[in-house]
C-alpha cells in the first residue's frame, strides 16, 4: 500500500516537472532568479579601519558633488559641448570627469554626455544653481580594503539658488571606489542607484 503511494507520487511529480519544462520551452523562458522592480538593497555592515571608513565617506560626498557640479551648465554651454567636443568647455568637462571617475569610465561618460548634448541641441533640460550639496541621510555599510572600497547609502542633493535651497529626491546608492595610488585619491569605479520615489 505504501509503495503504491510512493509510485503514484513519483508519477505526479514527474508529470509536473515535465509539463513545466515543456511550458518553458514553448514560451522561450529561461529559468533563473526572479527580478524585482525596486532595487532597494538591505543595509550592510562597516568593515575596515575607522579612519579609512571616514576617509571613504568624505571622498564619496566630494566626488558625487563634483560630478553633479559638472552638469551645472546653461543650454548654450551644453549645446557648445555637443557641437564641438574639443572646445575649452568640453575639455574642462572631460578633466572634471577624470577627477571623479576611473579613467576608462570617465572617458566613456564624457562620450555619452557629448552625444546627449549633441542630440538635445540646446533644447534639453536646463538646471543651474549657485551651489549644490550632497546630504547622506543613512550610511548603510562601508567596506574598505587596500586599494578598493564600496559603500551603500541613502542620499539627496540640496540645490541653492538666490539664497533659496531645495532638496532633490532620495536615492539609495551602491558605489565602488578604486584608490589611485599615484595621485593618492579615491575615484568612482561604478555607481548603481535606486530612487526611493519614482520620477
Amino acid at each position, binding site marked *: 500500500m505504501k*509503495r*503504491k503511494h510512493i*509510485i*503514484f*507520487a*513519483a*508519477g*505526479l*511529480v*514527474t*508529470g*509536473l516537472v515535465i*509539463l*513545466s519544462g*515543456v*511550458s*518553458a520551452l514553448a*514560451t*522561450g*523562458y529561461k*529559468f533563473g532568479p*526572479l*527580478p*524585482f*522592480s*525596486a*532595487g532597494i538593497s538591505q543595509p550592510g555592515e562597516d568593515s575596515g579601519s575607522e579612519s579609512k571608513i571616514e576617509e571613504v565617506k568624505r571622498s564619496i560626498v566630494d566626488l558625487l558633488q563634483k*560630478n*553633479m557640479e*559638472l*552638469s551645472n*551648465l546653461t543650454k548654450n554651454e551644453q549645446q557648445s559641448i555637443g557641437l564641438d567636443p574639443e572646445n575649452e568647455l568640453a575639455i574642462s568637462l572631460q578633466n572634471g*570627469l577624470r577627477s571623479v571617475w576611473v579613467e576608462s569610465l570617465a572617458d566613456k*561618460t564624457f562620450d*555619452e*554626455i557629448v*552625444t*546627449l548634448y549633441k*542630440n*538635445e541641441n540646446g*533644447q*534639453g*533640460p536646463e*538646471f543651474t544653481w549657485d551651489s549644490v550639496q550632497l546630504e547622506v541621510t543613512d550610511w548603510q555599510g562601508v567596506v574598505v580594503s587596500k586599494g578598493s572600497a564600496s559603500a551603500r547609502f541613502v542620499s*539627496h*542633493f540640496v*540645490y541653492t539658488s538666490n539664497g533659496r535651497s*531645495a*532638496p*532633490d*529626491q532620495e536615492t539609495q546608492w551602491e558605489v565602488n571606489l578604486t584608490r589611485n595610488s599615484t595621485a593618492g585619491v579615491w575615484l568612482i569605479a*561604478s*555607481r*548603481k*542607484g*535606486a*530612487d526611493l*520615489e*519614482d*520620477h
Partner: protein
Amino acid sequence: MKIISSAFRRLLVFAFGFIIACGLVAATGGSASAYSYDGLGAVHYAHLYACNGVDCHNSQYLYLGSDCANFVSQSIHDGGGLTYMRGVSSVLDWYYDTTTALDRTGYSQNVYSGSQSWVSVSALYDQLRFTSRLSSIANPTMSLKYSGANSGDIYMYDWGKDEGFSHVALATDNGSFANYQDPFPSPLPNYSSITGGSGSRMAQHTNDRDWAPWNYGYWGERDASIRSKMRTKILRIAPAG
C-alpha cells in the same frame, strides 16, 4: 509472469499519477482564458485612479509603496480586459491576490500574495513577452516630443542609474499636459512647460501623476551623466489572445 504483472501494475499507478498531474495543471489554468484588449478601457481606469497631488487609488487594491507595476497591471486588467494567467511556471502567472497575515503586534492585515509579474516591472515585461501578449516594442528618444504611443500602451523606464528598467506608466493619449508642478522634490518643471506643453501623456503611481508628459523623469534629471543613460521602451499589448 507474476513479476511482469507486478511491474505493469506499478506502471499503471505511475501513469495514473502522471495523468492526475496533467489534470491539475489544466484545472488550475495552464493556459489563460481568451481576451480582447481594450486600450481605451485601460486609460479610463487609469484616469479614475491616478490623480495629481491627491491619493485617489482604487481601495479594492492594496497600495504597495513602489506601486507603479501594481497600478499598470490594474489598468490593463480591470480597464483593459487582459485576463489573469495562472500558468505552469510561476513566471508566466499574472494575477492579483491577497491573504491575511498577522503583523509583529499580532494585528491581522491584508498582504499581497499575487504573482511577481503583477508588481514587478521586469517580471511584468517578461510575462508579457513570454506569453506572446506583447505585440511590439518601440524605443523613443527621451528628450523629444513624442506622440507615437497608443492609448493603453505601457511606458517602461530605465532611469540611467545602472539599475535597469524599474518604472512603468500607462500611455493615455496625446494632448496638452496638465498645468501642474509636483510639490516635491522641487524645483521640478511644470508639466505644461515640457516639449511645448503637449505630446504623449501618461498616468502613473508611486509619485501619482495624470495628464503628465511621458518623459517627465528625463526633464527632471539634472545629472547629465545619468540623463545620458536613460531609456524608455513602449510596450504594445496584442489586441487579442
